[in-house]
Each structure stands twice: as structure tokens, then as C-alpha cells.
């Protein structure tokens, strides 16, 4: 079992980086690369969430605030099933199935009555679902959150370039989510189901009139969105968090991604997610030092955390000023 390289600490993507930066250019460079990869990783997770949200909005015209709850369920299911089966992979697979199933059941029971309603009704109803799921999880799993440990091989540092190490699991996240993104693209652009999805997005009544079972289609799309959310939840569970309310925190970021990328556009979600992930991670990693170089230490220390968390919102504000409909408006899907 290879030991984790202590120089590149197992630091969570969010929060201040550990350890002081050396003055050597090399370490700086390596740190920069590491943070870039962390940014990509966050971006990929955001993409999974945003893709599901934007699909559901684009096809069913539904604002789904409870999307974060499905993300949370994915994480909790994974932690539970992994503990029960003793295998991370098996636990993950079961969790994915469970979340997809939960999503579809939810769609039939609670979401269907909301189709065609004003968005405000969606907001009210799915907000209620958030409250429900948070307390349901607390009732079943308790208030303390859970941990999900990885098999030890996943913990080792993988050498991606000479002298450049990166935790293997994080690399896996990036690669797997890229694969999922590619599969999603294939699904939407090349399959019959994807064609129905795209058709349903542009003309619901027509698709219904053609005899396609719209109800089933919607349930499947919702299930797909739920799977993506759950998948994101379970993938990040070992390295970030499994706790109540985790959905709400990341949901906001997903919203920002969608606004920047353009509602209804998967491609937009992908590009925007990467931008947001990188900007947020690099901002948190480097902005405090940048500020310290420019301002006094006190001022920098006060402003830094606030400014770094603000950076993506500033980006969103900028996009809004220049291109209110997003980078890739839904016309190009």
C-alpha cells in the first residue's frame, strides 16, 4: 500500500488550503496544478448537478429545489450500503439505483401534480420537499452525518506527470464524471430516448399527440436527473461530506452554473461548471495571498474569505450584464 505523499496533503476542495506556501517556484507550480485539478473536479460534480437540473427544467419546465435532496440521498445511501456490503463500489452501485428509484417515486407522487403550474408553485412545493427530506434523513440516519471510507488503494497519490502527484480517487472522480458527461451527450444526441427528450423540450403537446407516453418520458427524465444528482453525491461523499443540508449548499452553486451556462443547455452547463469550479477553487486557494501582497495583512485576512466566496457571484453578475440569457442559450442544445 503506497503511502500518501505528505507534501500534497489530502486537503478538501473547500476551505483554506493547509500549510504555508514555499517560496520556491516549483512548489507553487505543483500547488497550482493540484488546485486546478481540484477545480476541475468540483466543476465536474457541479456539472452532474447542473445537467440534471437543466434537463428537468428544459424538458418539464419544472424548477426543482429538491434536487439537492437527491444529491444528499445519494451520499447517505452510498455510506449505508458501503458499510453494509463492505465494498465501496457495490455500495455506490446500490446507492445509484436507490436514488434513481427514489427520484422516480418522488416524481410520480409529488412532482407530477406540479407540471404546467406557475414556477412559484414549483418553488413552494419543492421547498416543502427540502424540509421533508432534511428531517427524514435526520430521522433515519440521525443528526450527525456519516462517513464513507474508501478502499485503501484509492487513497494513494497517483503520479500524473513526473513529480506531480494527485490523489487517485479525485482523479477517478474527474475521469468517471467525464465519462458520464460523454454518455449523457450520446444519450441526448444519438438515442431514440434522447430524441424524444429533445422533441419534448421543444413541443410537449406534439410529442404527446404522436402517441409517446409523455408521463413515462417525464418520469424517466426525472429519474435520470435524480441519478446524476445522486451520483454526484455519492462520488464526493468520501472526500467531502455526508450531512444534512449538504444539498442546499451545493444547489446554489448549481444554480449559478445554470445561469452562466444558459438554462436548458447541457453544453452550457458543462462549460459553466468547469469555469465555476476552477474560479471558486483557485479563488479560495490564491486570492488570500494575492490580497496579502497588495494590501495589509489584516485587511487581507478580513476580506479574503469573503471575496473568494464572492468570486463566482461576481462572475455571474458580469455574465448577466453582458449576456443575460447565458453563454449558451437553450436554442443550441
Amino acid at each position, binding site marked *: 500500500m503506497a503511502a500518501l505523499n505528505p507534501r500534497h496533503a489530502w486537503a478538501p476542495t473547500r476551505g483554506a488550503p493547509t500549510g504555508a506556501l514555499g517560496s520556491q517556484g516549483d512548489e507553487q507550480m505543483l500547488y497550482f496544478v493540484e488546485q486546478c485539478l481540484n477545480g476541475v473536479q468540483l466543476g465536474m460534480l457541479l456539472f452532474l448537478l447542473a445537467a440534471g437540473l437543466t434537463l428537468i427544467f428544459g424538458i418539464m419546465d419544472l424548477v426543482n429545489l429538491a434536487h439537492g435532496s437527491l444529491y444528499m440521498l445519494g451520499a447517505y445511501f452510498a455510506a449505508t450500503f458501503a458499510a453494509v456490503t463492505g465494498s465501496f463500489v457495490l455500495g455506490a452501485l446500490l446507492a445509484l439505483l436507490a436514488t434513481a428509484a427514489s427520484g422516480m417515486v418522488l416524481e410520480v407522487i409529488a412532482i407530477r401534480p406540479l407540471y404546467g403550474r406557475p414556477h412559484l408553485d414549483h418553488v413552494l412545493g419543492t421547498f416543502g420537499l427540502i*424540509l421533508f427530506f432534511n428531517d427524514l434523513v435526520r430521522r433515519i440516519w440521525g443528526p450527525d452525518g456519516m462517513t464513507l471510507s474508501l478502499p485503501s488503494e484509492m487513497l494513494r497519490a497517483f503520479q500524473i506527470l513526473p513529480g506531480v502527484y494527485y490523489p487517485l480517487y479525485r482523479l477517478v472522480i474527474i475521469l468517471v464524471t467525464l465519462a458520464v458527461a460523454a454518455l449523457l451527450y450520446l444519450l441526448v444526441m444519438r438515442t431514440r430516448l434522447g430524441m424524444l427528450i429533445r422533441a419534448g423540450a421543444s413541443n410537449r403537446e406534439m410529442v404527446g399527440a404522436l402517441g409517446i407516453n409523455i408521463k413515462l418520458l417525464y418520469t424517466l427524465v426525472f429519474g435520470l436527473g435524480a441519478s446524476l444528482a445522486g451520483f454526484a453525491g455519492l462520488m464526493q461523499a468520501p472526500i467531502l461530506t455526508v450531512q444534512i443540508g449538504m444539498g*442546499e449548499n451545493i444547489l*446554489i452553486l448549481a444554480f449559478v452554473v445554470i*445561469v452562466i451556462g444558459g438554462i436548458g443547455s447541457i453544453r452550457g452547463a458543462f462549460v459553466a461548471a468547469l469555469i465555476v469550479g476552477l474560479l471558486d477553487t483557485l479563488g479560495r486557494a490564491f486570492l488570500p495571498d494575492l490580497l496579502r501582497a497588495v494590501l495589509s495583512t489584516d485587511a487581507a485576512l478580513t476580506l479574503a474569505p469573503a471575496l473568494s466566496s464572492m468570486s463566482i457571484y461576481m462572475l455571474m453578475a458580469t455574465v448577466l450584464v453582458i449576456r443575460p440569457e447565458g453563454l449558451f442559450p437553450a436554442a443550441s442544445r
Partner: protein
Amino acid sequence: MKTAREDSGKTGFASRLGARTALTATMLALLALVPLYAAVTGDPFALTLFTRIVIMAIAAVSLDLIMGYGGMVSFGHAAYLGIGGYAVGILWKEGIVSGFVQWPAAIAISALLALVVGALSLRTRGVYFIMITLAFAQMIYYVAQGLDRYGGDDGLTIGQRSSFAGLIDLNNNTLFYYICFAALIGSIYLVSRIVNSRFGLVIQGARSNERRMRAIGFPVFRYRLVCFVIAGALCGFAGALLANHTNFISPAIMFWTRSGDLMVIVILGGLGTPFGPVIGAVVYLILEEALSRVTEYSGLFLGPALLLVAIYLRGGIAGLFRRNAP
């Protein structure tokens, strides 16, 4: 020439005979009597709870102005509660305890923030607008968390209530309640005058049919922006009251789920009605309080209840009594 009363659709402060007026009048009367009840039963908790309800009702009135009448679904309105509260808290911390400075500052800073957020957000509409206001509010939340000097995530305990040079003593809880209650009545009256004025008709028209508004010659954006600023300022005022009420302010008041609570209150009470926000605040907050006494998991009941309201109760509770529902 006055419009025919029948089917006039006028949104008025003047009462209309019917169950809705009876309900509203009863509710207001009961609210006015809360301090009496608290004094008689010796239970100060009722007073505390209802002061909070009345303050949240003021915030809800401000949200109803833009959301109910204006159709601008702002999912970040709780941010202004926070701004108003922090204005009071920060000024206190820096040695300024006079309400004559704190309260206008709370209103002015909230208005300024609403101006900036509105100028950016109102360029979008529909779902975009919802998400953007949400994101901006969350941004302000994070900024507040980063204010270590003012408590950061733990919040700031405010040593004393706003002082008004001995004219009013806010430490008298009964007096404070009546001040809040008067502020509520005043807010409702103010909003009802605004929505029936020329300005208000533009806002309502823009909600009803924005394309038509442009076609007849209204530059809709600037009117919406001003409306947004007014709502932000009023909510900031509620925030100042809240900070005084709890002698405490923290970023938690601005977390986006609190904005959700505000929206629920407004929708529950009935969008675009003068007293809907009060009805909503009373019902929702009492329900929340009652549930939390009965069970540790109030969300298990409140959540589905909200979903059912969304599905079956169009127009909220006030809508149940509205005569000419479309």
C-alpha cells in the same frame, strides 16, 4: 369617474364585506390584544413569539409588493432582513446606539443593496430571476460570515436596543410590540396606496402583460427597479426591528432557506392581497412553533403540507375567500 365596483378588481385597503374581511379584522384585533394576553397569563413567550410574527409580517408585506403585485419572484429577500439587522448591530458595535442613526441607515443601506442587486437581476426574468436573486442573497450571507469583527458565523450579540434619546424606551417589550404592530399597519397602508397609484398600476400591468406594457410605451425596467428598492428598504426596516427584538444578528437570518420561508408566508397568505402577508405570517410561524413542540421532525409534516398547498390551494389562504377567482 369611478369604475363600477362590481368585478372592478381593485385591490383596496377599504374593506369588502365578506368572510375575508371578518377573518382579517378578527386577526388584527387578536394581534392587538397579544400584550394583554401576555400580561394576564404572565407568559412573556407569547409576546416574544408574536413580536417576531409581526416583524416577519412586515418583511412579508415588502415581498408581497414585488412578488404578489409585481410578479418578481425574489428568492433572496431575507438578505435585506440581514442587512437591516447588521446595520443596527455594526453601528452599535462601533458605538452608535442612536436609533435616529441606526434605523435610517438600515433602510438606506438595504435600499442601496436592492438597487445594485435589482439593476443586475431585473435584466432577467422567470426562472433566471429566481436563481439570480437566490445567488446574490447567498453571496451576502457569505460576506456576513466573513465579518470576524462582527461575530462571523456565530453572530453578534447586540448589547442594547436602539436608543431614541429617552423619547421611547424600546426595552419595554409591550411598547416595542405596539411599535412593531403600528409599523405593520403602516406598511400595509403604504403598500396599498402604492399599488393603486400610477406607479403601482405600472408594476401590476407589467406583471399582467409585460409585452403589452412596452407596446403602450412604458419603460418597464426602471419602474420595476424602483419597486424592488422600495421593497428592499422596507425589509431592511423589518431587519432593524428584528435585531432590536432579539438583541442579536447572525448570517443565518440570510441563509436562502429563510428567503424560502418568506416566500412561503406570502404565498400561503395569498399573493397580491393587502392582508395576505399577515395571515401567512401568523399561520406559518404558529404552525412552525406548534409543530416543533409536538415533534422533533417538523419537516416531515410541514414539508408535505407546503406541497399540498402548492398543489391544491391556489391563491393561498386568502384565495379561499376571494369571490371572483378566475
